[in-house]
């Protein structure tokens, strides 16, 4: 079955991409993803200035998924652009550049800078563990609106907003995000792990984001609800560990799906598994991908 799909006018060879932050901070890693059959690559969230990220422990596996507080390490947008520019021609799939701005002017400058490289910009409005970035930006509705507008003004291609998994906050802000072209739903949930013998939180940042299995039904519910509230395309992300998990996202209304933490368990071959699983399912159910999207909704 045909897996080619479109998001805001961008053609994808299949509806699967990596989630930002996962194997996406260098060109060599993005190339590995491309070879692994992704429909598009999403870069690590890039900030205006260089960030070292937090001290370890930064990523741990727990019973119901994974916790991370990497602290958005990245070499800064200028350095990243330099690296990406050198190899732009080697990418046959769309590059979605994720940016994590803290204020509108810098957001616009970053967006403009990636104009010739990126097929779309994904704005990280939801990292739950970084000061003045991500979720802290999202919690300021006016700031969020202004950042989205500035990115849109500086970038003539689609702009996606990556949202947190918190229903009330998301539904409260969604109308003021009218400037953007699609939603990425959702980022991780603010969470914690304590070691009972050390008697201390494990992550050096104490708080982190919960991803993996536990996140899937939560993101799924939000995708379902947003699908009825907005006409914009939705990219589902959260705890996808198999093609079945991904199919649930399509049924709920996602036009594409991102995967992240599952790479710990299954490695980069997960993308092949997703593509083959979805193809087989569509064939067996005699349905197209387009028809599948949002099918779980009444009428």
């Amino acid at each position, binding site marked *: 079955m045909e897996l080619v799909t479109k998001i805001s006018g961008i053609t994808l060879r299949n509806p699967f991409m990596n989630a930002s932050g996962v194997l996406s901070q260098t060109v060599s890693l993005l190339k590995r993803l491309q070879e692994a059959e992704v429909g598009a690559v999403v870069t690590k969230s890039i900030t205006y200035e260089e960030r070292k*990220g937090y001290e*370890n422990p930064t990523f741990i596996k727990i019973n119901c998924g994974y916790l991370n507080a990497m602290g958005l*390490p*990245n070499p800064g947008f200028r350095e990243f652009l330099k690296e990406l520019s050198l190899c732009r021609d080697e990418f046959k799939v769309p590059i979605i550049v994720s940016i994590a701005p803290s204020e509108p002017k810098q957001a616009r400058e970053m967006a403009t800078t990636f104009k010739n490289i990126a097929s779309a910009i994904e704005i990280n409005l939801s990292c739950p563990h970084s000061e003045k970035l991500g979720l802290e930006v999202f919690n300021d509705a006016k700031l969020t609106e202004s950042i989205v507008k500035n990115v849109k003004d500086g970038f003539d291609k689609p702009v996606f907003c990556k949202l947190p998994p918190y229903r009330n906050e998301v539904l409260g802000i969604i109308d003021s995000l009218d400037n953007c072209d699609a939603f990425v739903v959702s980022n991780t949930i603010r969470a914690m792990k304590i070691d009972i*013998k*050390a008697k201390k939180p494990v992550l050096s940042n104490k708080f982190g984001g919960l991803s993996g299995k536990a996140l899937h039904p939560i993101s799924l519910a939000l995708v379902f609800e947003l699908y009825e509230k907005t006409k914009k395309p939705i990219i589902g992300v959260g705890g996808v560990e198999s093609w079945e998990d991904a199919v649930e996202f399509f049924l709920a209304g996602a036009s594409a799906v991102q995967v992240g933490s599952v*790479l710990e368990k299954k*490695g980069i071959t997960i993308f092949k598994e997703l593509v083959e699983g979805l193809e087989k399912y569509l064939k067996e159910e005699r349905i197209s991908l387009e028809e599948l999207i949002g099918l779980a909704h009444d009428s």
Partner: protein
Amino acid sequence: MSYYIRGKLELKSKPLDKVAILNFNLDEDINCKPGQYIMAWIPNYGEIPLSPSFCSDKKLQLLVEDVGTTSNKFVNLELGSYAYFRGPFGNFFNLSKGNKYLLVAGGTGAAPILMAAKNLSELNVEAIVIYGGRSKNHLVFLEEFNKYLRKVYAYTEDGTFGYYGVVTKDLQSIIDSFSPDVILTTGPEMMMRKVIEISVKNKIYCEASIVRIIKCASGVCGSCVLEPLGLLTCKDGPVFNGNVLINSNFGKTMRSESGREVEIK
């Protein structure tokens, strides 16, 4: 169960000002194979990847060099104090690849080679080591190597013990006389690069356990990437075949904590 396995520091020596050999008693077993690593945590300081020199039967031995906040805390840890461990992570040296092993160890990187030496002697595989350091007191595992291996070639850069010079100085002639099937190496990156070059030239199977900035230890975050293939030291490694390393940026560049490409000196 606690998330980490707790270890109590039972024995400690400081062969050098900035180097400690730490022996922990663990609450539970960690079985680490030579070349693999564990993540070693001290709350409020940080967590670092370390490749042990011994790790089984609820005992763990680490050689730690003070190169940052967390390793500094480890080097200065007092007897009876606790540290916390998880793992093992990554792949390990192949100890059934041949009948004759040449081990090449440099300075404080010698820990996994010592574990390999012990395991090879238990497997009755013929093995010798070339062991080098700046000065005599840098050869902290000299006694242990002598215990497990029939031949130890010691090298010091200042000539205070053994042969005068670096470990790679007589590598070619030792290869010529010993004719190893396999070469295993750990140590400073430039030293390993040299060992690999000589191994590859001689068409001898070679493995190196390498160091990069490891954060997630799970093959997810990409901080430990080995260019240009995008291999992940934390999961695809830390042990890599010499043929892979020689065609990579190993010995040339690595990624900083932010992901910036920096030159290795």
